[in-house]
């Protein structure tokens, strides 16, 4: 026997496979992606036997058909990677459908053990399973376990270990005499070709399975020949249907009787309502489903992102008749410091209690900020290497790590929704609305998350099974203005007084334009795509149950590692590059580090003197940097968008560049270049006029979000799809900014041209909407 034994776990989604995997492997588990696809690949080790056993958790599947990536992965793994044993995890409370996969696994030659999971639940319901009978019928060992309560796991593994040494020959449940002959003929042909697992391949070829037909075209004539003379009474020569039917028939006649149901079916034939049914009645109620859903969503984002939990601050302001800004909700200085994570001596006021997400983030930010200050304190001031470490690497890492508390909270809640079974119901409730845009109900959560932060939002697209839907959702993500963009809107809104627009309306309109843009993009994509195929929505609605703490933690840990590694590596590298471009350049005729110790001047231009000494500060001459030259060069690219023109054009260009590190850096860079919220700064930005400000805002809204988001997208998309996403983001922002600039420009200077153009644009969109709706109707009618 081999040095290391490999056991693969296979089973339906919701069969408790992941719980079993977590229970068996504990801390040894690690997660990656299967080669070429973003389906989780979990691996771990079981150490309680004489030899360590490597455990591979295959993706949850219902069948070994060739249609979904999960099924193909599992199939290829079992057939080609030669695991020593397969543990087929079967949900004992739903034997019939679970055993359907079992009948396919039995056809391989891989040693196999059946883990009858949730047997404790079966007993609790008063039912029981005749294991002995099941073993007799199936012919492989069956072990009753509870992955959750850790019952019988050692027996299961000992059995798998024993079977691994023995080997097994495939067995089919197809009893039809004629068909059996054909199967055995094809099997012999496969064997002659030296193909492993010949029985499995034989049955799949009989079904005219895409993969088999492509790999073994030489054997197809055997089936075709046979079809000429043998037609089934019901199915004719549709062997795929015949085989599926045979499997289910065999299960009902041979296995189903092993399940001994207690007498809980009443005489009128209606089953008693289980707890799960009662919960479901409320959560998917015809009228209440949507309001309940909205409340749950609201709570989810509220506890993650809100600065004023349950609006305590705003409500008490209302009752006390004090302006919101002046309200000091908590006057005890200790609590103020505690909730705002501010340990400085300055007095701070608090207008509400922060949500747990914001609270943790404040403290997390305080901790990393202090660490950076500490390191900066012990290193020599003004040197390039201090700047590299503190302003470059550490600040870059900080911008990735600062998302962690909120990501973790959000994912904890999403994991609870998913584990409890509610997520499937969300998809059920919203599917109809989202389908019009080529999406399914499941896309809702990532999109809504996008208003908080694109990074967890992109990571949340992992729950979308359809690759096309996942790609579209990720690409639309920038339409939903994330939290880090809010400071940009705040600054630009303040420009309103100088450029002639209303500040409050500005911010509102940006969010609205984002959402409308998402709808327009989705509509146009549907309009121009020839592919009318919509992925099927045939989805199990699992029984509701309480989420398992252990599973939630394992899930969070996976997400955390994934995020820190993927986003961390890209961020660290790219922030150092931007740091270099920003800090080095040519001044006084030589290439050098641009940090200079300069005297601080007062308003009259005289040096400030404190305690007899001239006050100095370190200033970065960013306007001489390499980045500024790149900005000056690239600003031509942004000439058509308005804000790239003029003396300050390069400053905006550079700001959008540093915005790649984090969107907060857009205004940070603008401030370094004199475009801040001082009166002079606002007046400078105001020179862009309303069209320029909007065009600049829309560019920042739609463009590539930040390196952390790029890292997340890279984790969810492979190869080409990822690069398309990046170009999509760029093009989307460029086009939106361009259109916005010129239409608004003409509306202001040449209303006779501007307003008709605006009307034309709106008409085009409405027209596209009507065509898509018509097409949708037609497609429905033709079915």
């Amino acid at each position, binding site marked *: 026997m081999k040095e290391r034994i490999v056991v693969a776990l296979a089973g339906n989604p919701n069969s408790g496979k992941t719980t079993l995997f977590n229970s068996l492997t504990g801390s040894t588990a690690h997660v990656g992606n299967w080669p070429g696809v973003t389906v989780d690949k979990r691996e771990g080790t079981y150490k309680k036997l004489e030899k360590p056993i490597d455990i591979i958790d295959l993706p949850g599947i219902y069948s070994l058909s060739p249609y979904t990536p999960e099924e193909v992965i599992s199939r290829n793994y079992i057939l080609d990677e030669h695991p020593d044993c397969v543990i087929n995890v079967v949900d004992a409370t739903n034997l*019939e459908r679970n055993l359907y996969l079992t009948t396919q696994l039995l056809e391989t030659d891989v040693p196999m053990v059946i883990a009858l999971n949730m047997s404790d639940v079966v007993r609790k319901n008063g039912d029981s399973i005749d294991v002995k009978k099941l073993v007799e019928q199936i012919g492989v060992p069956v072990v009753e376990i509870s992955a959750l309560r850790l019952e019988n796991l050692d027996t299961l593994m000992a059995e798998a270990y024993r079977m691994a040494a023995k080997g097994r020959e495939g067995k089919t449940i197809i009893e039809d005499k004629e068909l059996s002959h054909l199967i055995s003929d094809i099997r012999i042909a496969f064997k002659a070709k030296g193909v492993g697992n010949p029985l499995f391949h034989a049955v799949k070829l009989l079904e005219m399975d895409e993969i088999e037909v492509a790999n073994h075209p030489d054997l197809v004539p055997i089936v075709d020949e046979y079809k000429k003379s043998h037609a089934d009474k019901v199915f004719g020569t549709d062997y795929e249907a015949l085989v599926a039917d045979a499997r289910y028939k065999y299960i009902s006649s041979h296995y189903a009787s092993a399940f001994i149901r207690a007498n809980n079916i009443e005489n009128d034939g209606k089953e008693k309502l289980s707890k799960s049914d009662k919960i479901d009645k409320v959560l998917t109620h015809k009228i209440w489903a949507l309001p309940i859903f909205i409340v749950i969503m609201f709570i989810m984002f509220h506890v993650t992102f809100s600065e004023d939990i349950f609006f305590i601050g705003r409500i008490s302001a209302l009752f006390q008749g004090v302006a919101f800004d002046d309200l000091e909700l908590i006057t005890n200085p200790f609590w103020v410091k505690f909730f705002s994570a501010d340990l400085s001596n300055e007095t701070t006021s608090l207008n509400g209690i922060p949500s747990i997400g914001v609270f943790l983030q404040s403290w997390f930010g305080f901790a990393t900020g202090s660490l950076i200050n500490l390191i900066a304190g012990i290193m020599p001031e003004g040197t390039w290497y201090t700047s590299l470490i503190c302003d470059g690497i550490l600040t870059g890492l900080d911008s990735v790590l600062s998302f962690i508390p909120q990501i973790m909270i959000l994912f904890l809640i999403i994991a609870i929704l998913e584990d409890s079974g509610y997520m499937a119901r969300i998809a059920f409730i919203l599917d109809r609305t989202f389908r019009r845009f080529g999406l399914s109900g499941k896309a809702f959560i990532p999109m809504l998350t996008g208003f908080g932060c694109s990074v967890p939002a992109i990571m949340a697209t992992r729950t979308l099974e359809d690759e096309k839907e996942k790609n579209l959702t990720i690409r639309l993500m920038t339409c939903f203005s994330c939290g880090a963009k809010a400071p940009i809107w705040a600054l630009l809104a303040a420009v309103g007084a100088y450029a002639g627009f209303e500040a409050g309306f500005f911010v509102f309109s940006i969010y609205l334009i984002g959402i409308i843009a998402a709808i327009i993009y989705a509509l146009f994509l549907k309009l121009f795509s020839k592919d009318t195929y919509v992925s099927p929505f*045939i989805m199990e609605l699992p029984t509701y149950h309480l989420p398992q703490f252990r599973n939630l933690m394992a899930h969070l840990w996976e997400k955390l590692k994934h995020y820190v590694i993927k986003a961390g590596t890209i961020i660290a590298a790219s922030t150092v590059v931007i740091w270099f471009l920003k800090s080095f350049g040519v001044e006084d005729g030589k290439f050098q580090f641009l940090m200079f110790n300069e005297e601080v001047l007062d308003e009259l231009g005289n040096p400030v003197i404190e305690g007899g000494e001239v006050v100095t500060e370190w200033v970065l001459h960013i306007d001489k940097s390499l980045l500024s030259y790149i900005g000056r060069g690239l600003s031509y690219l942004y000439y058509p968008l308005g804000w790239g023109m003029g003396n300050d054009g390069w400053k905006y260009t550079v700001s959008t560049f540093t915005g790649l590190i984090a969107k907060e850096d857009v205004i940070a860079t603008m401030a370094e270049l004199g475009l801040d919220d001082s009166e002079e700064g606002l007046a400078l930005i105001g020179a862009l006029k309303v069209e320029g400000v909007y065009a600049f805002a829309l560019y920042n809204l739609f463009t590539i979000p930040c390196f952390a988001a790029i890292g997340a997208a890279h984790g969810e998309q492979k190869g080409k799809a990822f690069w398309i996403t990046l170009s999509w983001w760029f093009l989307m922002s460029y086009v939106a900014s361009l259109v916005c600039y010129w239409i608004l420009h003409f509306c202001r200077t040449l209303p006779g041209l501007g307003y008709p153009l605006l009307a034309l644009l709106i008409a085009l969109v409405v027209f596209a909407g009507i065509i898509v709706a018509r097409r949708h109707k037609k497609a429905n009618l033709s079915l």
Partner: protein
Amino acid sequence: MRKTLDQLVKGETGLIISVTGEGRIRRRLFDMGITPGAEVYLRKKAPLGDPIEITIRGYELSLRKDEAKFVEVEVKS
């Protein structure tokens, strides 16, 4: 009375007669247990009337009306 599955009214039970459609969708229906002879019970419809939720082979399954159209059932009275 024969209908397609999408026409079933809430609370009705039917016996599956045939499954049409092609390729991937049909296979998926089979794999999920929707085969001739199986009994389906229409549990509910989503708030907007689509998709629908059925009980089949002892578990709950949701599918769109577009997909349910491929399934022909004999309504049980």
